[in-house]
């Protein structure tokens, strides 16, 4: 399979299939599927019996804390970017990772352009599906556009006010 997504910062093939609400399960092979939150709620048992692994696509308007108990055990949660400039899913991601402790695959889907990728990486997305016209290698490079950060997000950075403790003010 050719690489079409970034997983853990590297190009990777996508082994998940999105099961759109309109499609019947019969059209799909078993295996790893992503369904909408609405379908997950309606068909949970049937989905689990037919597919090896089920991930859930959560709308960016959802209250992620309220939804969390229903999806906490899912191996993949996908969050939506209807436009690259609509940052609601960034807050969902940070809350999922830092407050709710979600450790599974966190996927960004939608209008994901190369210039959104850096911010996705910092907010805890480890699975990024760029828009079809985007160059995967450039997206990978964008993850490290900055080597420094002032604040923590859902990543490895320590806030500067903590890093600077013990240092005198520069003059």
């Amino acid at each position, binding site marked *: 399979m050719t690489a079409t997504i970034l997983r853990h910062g590297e190009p990777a093939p996508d082994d998940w299939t999105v099961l759109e609400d309109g499609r019947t399960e019969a059209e799909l092979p078993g295996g790893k599927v992503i369904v909408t939150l609405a379908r997950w709620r309606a068909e949970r048992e049937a989905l689990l019996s037919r597919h090896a692994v089920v991930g859930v696509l959560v709308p960016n308007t959802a209250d992620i804390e309220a939804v969390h108990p229903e999806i906490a055990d899912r191996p993949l949660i996908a969050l939506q970017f209807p436009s*690259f*400039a*609509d*940052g*609601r899913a*960034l*807050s969902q991601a*940070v*809350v999922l990772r*830092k*407050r709710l402790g979600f450790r599974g695959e966190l996927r960004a889907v939608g209008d994901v*352009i190369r*210039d*959104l990728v*850096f*911010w996705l990486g*910092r*907010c805890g997305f480890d699975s990024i599906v760029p828009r079809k016209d985007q160059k995967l290698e450039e997206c990978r490079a964008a993850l490290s*556009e*900055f*080597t*420094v*950060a*002032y*604040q*923590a*997000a859902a990543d490895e950075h*320590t*806030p*500067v*006010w*903590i*890093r*600077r*403790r013990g*240092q*005198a*003010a*520069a*003059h």
Partner: protein
Amino acid sequence: MYRYDPIDRALVTQRVEQFRDQTRRYLAGELTEDEFRALRLRNGLYQQRFAPMLRISVPYGLLESKQLRKMAHVVRKYDKGYGHFTTRQNIQLNWPKLEQVPDLLAELAEVQLHGIQACGNDTRNITSDYLAGVSPDEHIDPRPYCELLRQFVALHPEFYWLPRKFKFGFTGAAVDRAATRTNDVAVHLVRRADGAIGYRFFVGGGLGRQPMLGQEMNPFVPESDLLRYACAILRTFNRFGRRDNIHKARIKIVLREWGPERFRAAIEEEYAKIKASIEGEELVLLPEDIERMRGYFTAPAYRPAAEVGADISGLAAQDAGFAAWVKRNVRAHKVPGYRVVFVSLKAPDHVAGDCTAEQFEALADICDAYSFGELRSTYDQNLVLADVAECDLYEVWRRLDAVKLATPNIGLVTDIVSCPGLDFCGLANAGSIGVAQDIYHRFDTLDAQYEIGPIRITISGCMNGCGHHSVGHIGILGVDKHGEEWYQVTLGGSPGNDAAIGERIGRALARDEIAEGVERLIRGYLELRCDEDETFIECYRRIGMAPFKALLYVNESEAAAA
């Protein structure tokens, strides 16, 4: 003044390279207009009528001499030899060439200047009291807190794609000189009876369409929790701010649609959750963090009053020009022997807020020689030399006067606040600069200005309100009527402690009526005031709209019915 360390420098340098690549890809056709717009705005680059406009952030209005010299250099090299100070204490360049902007930003980065988040739907430059640290009415210097918050919001990944622009304004003084409640968030530094420092938070202010003043959300957030509470507000806005309609996307609309109780409950709930999580540990400020930041904003090496104090009444008696300047542009300082000097950017036949390369250079020299190398930009589009010794006042006046920066009109009728308007701005419906100059010339004798006393005239060329017309004592809003420029007048607005949104007086006036109309309002006020001490705004508040309406529409029989 805050000094960059290697982390700040790396961040700004890498930012320039990121934008250089984005610009290259746009010019190569690899980024769409919409995509590049969102990216360039986040670097301060706005498309105006004739050229891009670059907005340079001046954090809480603080500048130093080497930055001023760099400004002189870049406006000569990349622009037409001048810059423009805005009501958000920033500097705008009107004529840079897109392909040169990355180089321009690289030069600015050498002196701690940048356009990061100067425009766009993100957290904008934080504004503050331009007399921070020097004013006798200040109880807590807000600058260390502004800088701590600036670093928290700069390139914050979660809050980089907000529903709309988001502005913070700070004050720690009795007098609000930063129009704080016109911001999405106002932070007032307060000291409780037990001595503890904290923040009084107001949320939901904003000008533009549906202007509103911020409402109190929390009367006392502890000093350690500045970033925790700010994070709670930003996350609430990012989640719930409307994205379906750009005109309803500010946080003030969430507040209006929810009502203050539900809105406050949402922020407080998020704040409580942050405090209880790992985020709370990361965001809490320890006393040493604040103390360390205070170290950047310590008082300069003031000399004893016996050495620098001076009785300037003798010089003033000999020189009427100096006397007038001292009366209007020089104010009290908390340290004996020192004064605060206002630098007027409102000279006759000079665009309000504009500053030429020669003026930038002269200011650099003057502040190096007489004000510890620092300069501040003000909410009213003027500048401040914050620490001038009394014995230097005459020389400072002489040198400012030589470059037309000593017009003695601070706070008077010719100290008009104005956006660039239709002459430059792609959003404007009508001109602002010409109207400002017409009004200026109707009152340009000093005697007339002194007789009128303190008054705030503010002009915006469109509904977006960059000229803060909604909070002018006399606010003027340019509107387009079938391709013609018309002007709506509001009265009674104020940005300060007595903050109020002005009320519309009636029908708009044509371009050739507006200056005369404003003159009638002001001359009429002189007749209506109860005594010489009653200011325009006090008079308006006492007698109300009707007498002013009659003055403005004096020739119209329908005035009463309008």
